[in-house]
């Protein structure tokens, strides 16, 4: 991973080599330093009175990175921790190295040339391989407001396989007249923000670091929220061996590892909110609809099958008319997050007694789900491969056999109303199908015939006269035994 920062005598208003004073690095003496992840080298490809460029080359030691546990924290126990772009791409490791190399310069101190620290100088920055989530336009969007002119060229994935298109890297050149300390702070914050991958150095003081590094510019940045969110969003990944196990299994199939991301990927449409017509997001409307329905049918013992991180469960626990709340998910990781979100450890005994949280699967019969008044499958069925739906129907309607079953699923007819959603695409990458209202009703009817339920349907969200509501809901009620 590599970057250069250059200036000229005209740009500096002094001999260009004075850049060395500003950076506290002697242009005549290359320097190496051990940093997190490897060794950082600083040297000057050119250092004349006219032009001066400093280069930072971080030689990542991938093996040491894995052994120190840093790679493991980021990648889980997968091949990805051994073969990844860290040795080449300008990510958070480089930002950390820059912060360490130029600590004094970032404070803005230069006893030899104090006048240079306060003055904007013309700088040329080159980051040849910058991982950039959001592409070249995102680099432009984040750097431009800070006074940089931005040239970000997408890097092809493989020039010999042009069909694969561009990679997530850009070849970034920044040019601008800024204080050097500010420029360094921009890099320090923006490299990890644009990478938007995992940090290696997440600590409790992360907020302080951002506040310090962002002083004087972040507050006025139009995308300050995006920057803060990306910078701080990466929760420390669970390193529980049981959870890594999943990554291994999924990777061994040659599929992308990010199947169960720390940050659940929001479904398209779920975050639509804020305008006058939809004061609350679809996800909230859906949960509200489900909870109200459960109250309406007088359910007391309820289960959220596929509870994810437990958002609905939290809402159910708030209402003491639900005397027992069962929360299941097939993902052990999701359950761990749910336990945290619900603060199970700190729950009062009384509340704790109402909650049962355990791993289960909707394709296996599970006796622990017997005798429920209602089971909720909220945005679950579309994550099940169609050939496995009969097993789901059997496990839920045949084996668990609750008095009521509430199923919600996207209404695919409504997808045309989502401007950001390409035609024919699903709302979430893990969706195996999305049904029209007719398709959903066909399935529901066949389930009823097989397992002795009656079904009725309701819209969730604004019921578009043409394409229907964004979410469709079915309420199944067990027919009385003959």
């Amino acid at each position: 991973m590599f970057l250069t920062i250059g200036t000229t005598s005209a740009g500096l208003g002094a001999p260009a080599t004075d850049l060395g004073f500003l950076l506290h690095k002697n242009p005549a003496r290359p320097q190496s330093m051990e940093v997190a992840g490897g060794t950082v080298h600083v040297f000057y490809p050119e250092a004349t009175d006219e032009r001066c460029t400093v280069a930072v080359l971080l030689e990542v030691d991938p093996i040491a990175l894995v052994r120190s546990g840093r790679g493991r924290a980021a990648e889980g126990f997968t091949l990805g921790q051994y073969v990844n772009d860290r040795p080449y791409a300008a990510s958070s490791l480089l930002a950390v190295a820059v912060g360490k190399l130029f600590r004094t310069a970032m404070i803005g101190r230069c006893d030899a040339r104090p006048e240079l620290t306060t003055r904007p100088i013309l700088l040329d920055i080159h980051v040849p391989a910058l991982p950039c989530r959001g592409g070249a336009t995102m680099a432009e969007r984040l750097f431009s407001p800070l006074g940089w002119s931005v040239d970000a060229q997408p890097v092809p994935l493989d020039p010999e396989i042009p069909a694969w298109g561009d990679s997530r890297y850009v070849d970034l050149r920044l040019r601008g007249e800024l204080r050097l300390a500010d420029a360094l702070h921009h890099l320090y914050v923006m490299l990890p923000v644009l990478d938007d991958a995992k940090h290696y150095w997440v600590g409790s003081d992360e907020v302080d670091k951002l506040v310090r590094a962002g002083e004087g510019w972040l507050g006025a940045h139009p995308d300050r929220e995006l920057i803060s969110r990306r910078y701080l969003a990466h929760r420390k990944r669970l390193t529980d061996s049981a959870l890594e196990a999943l990554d291994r299994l999924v990777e061994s199939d040659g599929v992308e590892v990010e199947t169960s991301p720390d940050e659940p990927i929001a479904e398209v449409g779920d975050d639509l909110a804020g305008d006058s017509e939809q004061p609350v997001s679809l996800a909230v409307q859906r949960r509200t609809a489900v909870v109200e329905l459960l109250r309406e049918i007088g359910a007391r013992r309820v289960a959220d099958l596929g509870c994810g991180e437990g958002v609905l469960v939290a809402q159910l626990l708030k209402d003491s008319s639900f005397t027992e709340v069962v929360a299941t998910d097939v993902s052990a990781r999701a359950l761990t997050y749910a336990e945290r979100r619900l603060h199970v450890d700190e729950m009062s005994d009384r509340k704790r007694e109402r909650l049962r949280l355990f791993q289960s699967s909707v394709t296996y019969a599970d006796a622990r789900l017997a005798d429920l008044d209602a089971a909720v499958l909220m945005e679950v069925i579309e994550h099940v491969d169609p050939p496995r739906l009969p097993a789901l129907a059997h496990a839920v309607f045949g084996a668990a056999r609750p008095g009521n079953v509430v199923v919600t699923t996207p209404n695919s007819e409504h997808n045309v109303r989502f401007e950001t959603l390409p035609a024919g695409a699903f709302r979430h990458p893990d969706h195996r199908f999305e049904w029209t209202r007719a398709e959903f009703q066909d399935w529901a009817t066949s389930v009823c015939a097989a397992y002795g339920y009656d079904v009725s349907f309701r819209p969730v969200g604004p019921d578009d006269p043409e394409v229907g509501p964004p979410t469709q809901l079915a309420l199944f009620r067990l027919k009385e035994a003959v």
Partner: protein
Amino acid sequence: MDRIGIPALSLVVLIGVSGSGKSSFARKHFLGTEVISSDFCRGLVSDDENDQAASKDAFEVLNFIAAKRLAAGRLTVIDATSVQPESRKQLVALAREYDVLPVAIVLDVPERVAIDRNALRPDRQFGPQVVQRQRQQLRRGLRNLKREGFRSVHVLDSVEAIDAVSIERTRLFNDLTDQTGPFDIIGDVHGCRAELEQLLGRLGYTITRDADGRPIDAAYGGSRAGAEPAGDPGAASVAGAEPEAEPAGDPARRVVFVGDLVDRGPDTPGVLRLVMGMVASGNAFCVPGNHEDKLLKALRGKKVKLSHGLEESLAQLAAEPAEFRADVEKFIDGLISHYVLDGGNLVVSHAGLVERMHGRTSGRVRAFCLYGETTGETDEFGLPVRYPWANDYRGRAMVVYGHTPTPVPEWINNTICLDTGCVFGGSLTALRYPERELVSVEAIEQYYEPAKPLHTATAPGREPDVLDITDVTGRRVIETATHGRLSIRAEQAGAALEVMSRFAIDPRFLLYLPPTMSPVATSPIPGVLEHPVQAFEAYKAEGVTELVCEEKHMGSRAVVLLTRDDDVAEKRFGLAGRGAVHTRTGRSFFDTTLTDELLLRLRAVASEAGLFDELDTSWLLLDAELLPWSAKAIELLKNQYAAVGAAARTSLPAAMVGLESAVAAGLDVGDLLARTQRRTVNAELFSAAYRRYCWPTEGLDGVRIAPFQVLASEGTTYEEKPHAWHLAIADRLVAAGPALVTATRRLFVDLDSWEAGIAWWEELTAAGGEGMVVKPAANLVRTKKGLAQPGLKVRGREYLRIIYGPDYTEPANFDRLRNRNLGHKRSMALREYALGLESLNRAARGEPLWRIHETVFAVLALESEPVDPRL
């Protein structure tokens, strides 16, 4: 009283006042672990055996332990005073809950004896009034013990009687575990005497007739009429009960009747006469059906509703002499609810039996055996809806039963119903045990109108193969034929549950997951991580010298379930479709349409090659490689491998430009420049390595299959067939379908031809090949140390770049990477291999779905172990 007989499985309750000598008595007659004393439990919870305040907790502990023992089928003795009816009531309830017989043994010693004994013990300084009170309670309750529910009550009313008594454990009546068969188990006869005679004849039995020509006995092969009775458990345990003159290779067979001999049919007395004769002569066992139960009540003059054919039986029996009716009454009265036979491998009961009731005795067990369990609902014909207990059955024993007419007997989880509705015009069916063969004769006519038509007796299609979460989760221990007992940890199962549920195909098509394979030991050659010599040496050390080197294809491991015709999948696996093509974690490579198209083409190839005929099977399971790798792993290739190449291609040259300028300017960064130059080359080699695994595919165009092993077919597995056989079949598939099927190149080597093997590997990998796998030529090999590794992979230098990273060949990296710990990987490879073979064998044998799925799931669970993924 000198001798007390107590059933081998029972709850023995010792009753007596404090100081009556219960603990000494228990020590004398029972194992220490069989006895649970309330004093001991008091000590457990309060550190004081006499702390009466701890009694409540102590009895909870006592009940808990007793429950665990009874659930496991172990005789249990309760050593507590149990002088109060309330405390005994709890124990009787416990015995009933686990369907074991409660037995009371009362130690009734004179008050003085008990008081004196207590006085001698410093920890029992509670005055004589305690004993007196206890004795009064005991005396009051003594008479009622039977009524309280104790099956037998033994009162020892003096110190002498207590000292003199001995205890004998008696075998339960239902315990015929020492009867190993073979058996012919016959379904519901319902008075169809003619069909029964026919069936017995077809099964190879010779019928003996009385002076009037009426059948009174039947013996297998005709030579065994009059064998010693075996129906009496007492006699059955006598050594040498087996007949001496038994023709070799043709062991004497016996019949087991599943009950419902009577009612509806034309000759109930005739059937009874024959069956009673066979049971008396030891040629048959018989369990009662609900119809016998009803008939017995009627014969005893109780008021019963004359329905469901009972009227016909009574009319027919009325024509018989009174002594015959008396014999029938006695016969039915003596029938045992169910039998556990052949070391516990076979259970016969009229209406089936859940596992927890096998070998148990209680009114509840008898009711289940006779009537089954009903859901309380009735169907559209007004008949009770039966609880489908067999769907949940997970027991080891085969359960054979009748009771519910069905057109064709079907196996559900190692259970089978043999009632094929003979009296309704169906057939009379027998199951040969242990052969699992069905033999039946058609009904001569319909003797009785069924309440609902026979052909709708079962739901359309078969019962779903229901998998339960407890079939796969939690800590599991699986017995494998090749590698002993293997355990799976709960968290491994948890990880597998998610992958199986979210990504895998229907378990009915998922018969096998391939095991992981260990690489060879690290080569001592500088710069070479893996080399064939280590594979050859490893096998030589185990005494395996005949080896085969197989080319490692540059694709994805694929398991192909192939069917011969479009109706095979539904019939054999209960699932529509043509089969499956799945990955090593059970995920389908393609959507249903493409999968079915691929299977259709492969079916044509296999048919053309004559494989289905040769292996005499309707389905085949093939181990193969699907090419190219990019067909499945395109996302991984792009996002992980190509991305690394792109980042390197952009950053390293830029760094080189900077370093070259710096060197030109006289700075001392020459080493760094040289290193960066090498890394630039490495990155290009890395990109070249992954590019070999990519070629464009569109639908199935460009997709190729390289089979290298036949895993299983109906009734057979092939792990003992040498690889030469497997590869010859692969070659025939290539010949039959060269456009789709790719050959696996191979080289056979022995001790003398290692050099050729090395040269071949060098040639393969120099051309960019992934490498090769070295396997014992004989396939499955057992050595003195156990199973030999089924294969060792020897990967090429360039291929390893995409595993160990572009710069793995740099000396600074290489020396650290050489330290590979292979032990865990090897152990995993063997365990997964054994589990794989186990699932193949279970699938080929047609075992219940949950048994196959258990082992398939276990492979996936083991794969989640944190082993170095580069191995």
